[in-house]
């Protein structure tokens, strides 16, 4: 199947775009430029997060945090190596990406921990950031049940990610 997927998608996309009269080359170049802007745009955030993660690892702070989080992580069915990633995920996408990269390096990108973390990364959002962005911009002062409902959704996503990565 993987032999056909990419070429098929390329044919579909190119065909459809040509049909709709899209100036594909110009548009693609524009998009690539935006992608590079994004990549370098997140560098300061990644750097700040990775410095803190590295400091926590070397100083032994990470061992303490992991030990404290052992029980709650076990209850969620998550490997203990995911602790820093899980803690950072709701706060910052770049920081979580940095923690994810750390898991890839230390555990290997195909380990169970890495697969679960990848699935969590793809199925949850930075809830605190989104909340302050959308409601902050419109000066909404009472967010009511938004945060508890979002936390329920995040926990459900984490448990589901762990479960599906184990059985699939």
């Amino acid at each position, binding site marked *: 199947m993987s032999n056909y997927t990419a070429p098929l998608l390329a044919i579909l996309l190119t065909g*459809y*775009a040509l049909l*709709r009269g899209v100036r594909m080359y110009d*548009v*693609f170049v524009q*998009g*690539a*430029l*935006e*992608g*590079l802007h994004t*990549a*370098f745009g997140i*560098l300061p955030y*990644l750097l700040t997060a*990775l*410095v*803190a*993660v*590295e*400091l*926590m690892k070397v*100083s*032994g702070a990470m061992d*303490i945090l992991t030990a404290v989080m052992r029980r709650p992580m076990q209850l969620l069915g998550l490997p203990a190596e995911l602790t820093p990633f899980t803690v950072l995920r709701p*706060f*910052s996408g770049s920081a979580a*990406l*940095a923690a*994810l*990269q750390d898991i890839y390096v230390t555990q290997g*990108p*195909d380990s169970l921990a890495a*697969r679960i973390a*990848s699935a969590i*990364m*793809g*199925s949850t959002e930075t809830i*605190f950031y*989104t909340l*302050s*962005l*959308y*409601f902050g*911009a419109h000066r*909404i*002062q*009472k*967010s009511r049940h*938004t945060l*508890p409902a*979002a936390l*329920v*959704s*995040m926990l*459900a996503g984490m*448990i589901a990610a762990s479960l*599906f*990565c184990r059985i*699939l």
Partner: protein
Amino acid sequence: MCLNIVWAVMILFSAVCAVVLGRGALVLDAAMQGADGAVTLVLSLCAMFALWSGIMKVVEAAGQQDVLSRLLLPVVSRLFPQASRSQQCRNAVTANLTANMLGLGNAATPAGLKAVGLMKELNGDSLVASDEMCMFLVVNMSSIQLLPASVISLRAAAGSANPVDILLPAFLATLVSTLFGVAAARLLAPLFPPKKPL
């Protein structure tokens, strides 16, 4: 922002631990190593980011998003009956959700901000979030992502044998998180009645 506190706590906690456990000499090296790792990470992300956002830009220009938004229409009018009465507001909601699904973060944020603004207007400009505003944010935060491109590219860069094998579990997990989010928003709403802010 809460990240200011989180980061400060991480640094302080690490520094105290380093002193107590006698690892102070390693601190500077570790900081440098973290910074170095970030630069390497961004360099490995550049190629995939540029490639993907090129492709997604073509998708956007070809209007494949419109196909998706037509499919979403019944769901949107069920979840947001009040907002759906305004054509403009419904369009903003749908645009935000489809952009999120396709991973077009740059397109999702302005549409989402516009949607929340219009919902606030429909809610009599109250500073208290309406049920539908809460629902919109929860759906947004549960992130129905069809293609987690940055995760796949990062995994590929790390030398994964099959970087796309997380697509199915990630998709199922995102489905579960969205369903639980919608259910929680519905069930929790009566417990948080809209009171006037102080």
